[in-house]
């Protein structure tokens, strides 16, 4: 009896968490999924809502935009963050100050970010005056009129500005955890700086890179607030932007609720698939599994 009690203790202690998850997490997810497979008439349907979504305004744009945004922004952010991390992880005069400066975007809330960029992007905003002041352009660029792919690029720039510092910090933490002697060993055996980066540093950092890439990808697929706050609804449609649009911009219409649920469902599937594919491709389990004896 006593022994059984001991075994049950951890479950008993965790029980409130299970309840919390069941009520506030599992239940809404389940009801959300249920909504996708219940038609307007209240009967079960496999495809009705999906078809509704496929035929809805801006569907294919939102899918393509999300894919383009996620792919380009994650790659761009990683390249910039890696360069910055490699630079800042070596000690030089002013490196601490540069680190401080580069982390400022992280501390700014999304709303403030949007306002900051919006004031910059308007016709007589600070970006145009800066570019004209430096004589890079002669006439102001009308950023806010950006459409289609240009709008996406604009949002990628803003997102990169906001997110790169947090990626950089993960990479710096990884670099600092890397034993100096691992690189020195490669150097004494004849590797040059590029070979050390390619053969030693990056492969050893791979676990921390993998984890943070997945997190970044999930966040990138869920982009919407910047798009809406800077450009407004439907200017740069994304998957989650559509959800917000149907919930927020045209509420009360029957189809819009259905569409919001269906878009949510699709987004979840996309995130799940992307994660699985990325884990496969990056071959993260290789080290853990290891080889066998001869």
């Amino acid at each position, binding site marked *: 009896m006593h022994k059984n009690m001991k075994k049950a203790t951890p479950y008993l202690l965790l029980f409130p968490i299970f309840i919390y998850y069941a009520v506030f997490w599992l239940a809404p997810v389940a009801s959300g999924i249920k909504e996708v497979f219940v038609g307007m008439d209240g009967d079960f349907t496999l495809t009705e809502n999906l078809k509704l979504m496929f035929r809805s305004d801006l569907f294919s744009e939102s899918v393509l935009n999300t894919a383009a945004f996620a792919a380009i922004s994650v790659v761009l952010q990683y390249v910039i963050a890696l360069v910055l991390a490699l630079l800042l992880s070596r000690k030089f005069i002013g490196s601490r100050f540069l680190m401080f400066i580069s982390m400022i975007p992280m501390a700014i809330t999304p709303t403030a970010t949007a306002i900051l960029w919006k004031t910059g992007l308007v016709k007589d905003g600070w970006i145009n005056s800066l570019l004209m002041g430096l004589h890079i352009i002669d006439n102001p660029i009308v950023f806010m009129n950006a459409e289609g792919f240009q709008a996406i690029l604009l949002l990628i720039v803003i997102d990169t500005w906001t997110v790169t510092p947090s990626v950089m910090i993960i990479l710096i933490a990884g670099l600092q955890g890397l*034993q100096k002697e691992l690189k020195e*060993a490669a150097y004494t055996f004849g590797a040059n700086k590029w*070979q050390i980066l390619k053969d030693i540093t990056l492969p050893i950092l791979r676990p921390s890179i993998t984890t943070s890439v997945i997190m970044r990808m999930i966040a990138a697929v869920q982009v919407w607030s910047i798009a809406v706050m800077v450009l407004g609804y439907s200017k740069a449609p994304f998957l989650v932007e559509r959800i917000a649009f149907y919930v927020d911009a045209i509420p009360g219409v029957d189809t819009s609720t259905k569409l919001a649920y269906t878009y949510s469902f699709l987004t979840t599937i996309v995130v799940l698939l992307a994660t699985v594919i990325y884990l496969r491709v990056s071959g993260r389990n290789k080290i853990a599994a*290891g080889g066998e004896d001869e």
Partner: protein
Amino acid sequence: MSYLEIKNLQKRYTAKGPLIVDNMNLSIEKGEFIVFLGPSGCGKTTTIRMISGLEEISGGDITVDGESIVNKLPRERGVSMIFQSYAVWPHMTVYDNIAYPLKLQKLPKDEIKKRVQAAAEATEIQGLLKRYPAQMSGGQRQRVAVSRAIVVEPRLFLMDEPLSNLDAKLRVSMRTELKRIHTKQGSTSIFVTHDQSEAMSMADRIVVMYKGKIEQIGTPMEVYQDSATRFVAEFIGTPPTNFFDASIVREGQEIYARGEGFDYKVPSSLHSALAGYAGKEIDMGIRPEYIDILPDQRKQDGYFCDARIDFVEPQGSHSILITEIGANKNVKIHTVDHMDIKQGTKVSCHVKNGMVMFFDKESSKRIK
């Protein structure tokens, strides 16, 4: 000219900072096994890193085979290094770890395979080639590091405290193994350690360093029995040398070293060396095994004091006796002949075979 020459080597980390390595001069013959020995911060690791090319020099020169290497990259110096942390790359299999230096040299695949196999056999890890470092013990990882270092057939084999992360038992067996590999490969080796027994058991010659300077260069027996400075006498040997403050007194034809609680008649062989020290204070050092005791308090040649045994520490093969002589409350005596001695016994202490060392108080140098 010797194989490896270190001339007036200097190192400081900042322009006006202290000299970490202070005008070091050293000649090493081809095939020698040299140990740099000293406490932490003595400059031994800095020196080996300057030889490897990981650290720039601030002055002087290092030549191998008559050719200066200080402006060369590590790979052009023909060195290989074993690190304290092993520095085995965690994301590569054992095979890839050993093969990586050869891949950098762009050798053909079948030659790489052959050489990796041979290097793995030399350290008896040929069965582990497909494993990852995480699946191996510390000793096995150390063997990988050794294989990787010998596979490049270096001109200089550098080892920076390679055994200090191993447990005590493994450390002792790895010593023998490294010596065996050295005998077989015949490469000129420099081994850095702060462990004097490691240095004694492995070195052809020991370079004892202290505060960036070489205190003594010599064979293990030379630095032990014929220590050049007080620091060497103190640092080498366990338990360490016993030191006493003594003043030199001349009485007729004899010279005495006297201090609180002891009076020692100096053997005539040291008379000329001590001639200038009459009436002066010096440091007198006697190693624990060169103090002979007689439990019946008889006095023989070499007598220097009476004492009472405070503690007995049996070690199996010998015992360490602890006693108080004058101001030195922790005099240690290594005895094989009187292992049955009891705590509290009154004894007379003698210096065996005149094995006493005198050091100048100012320079710490040996008077001989």
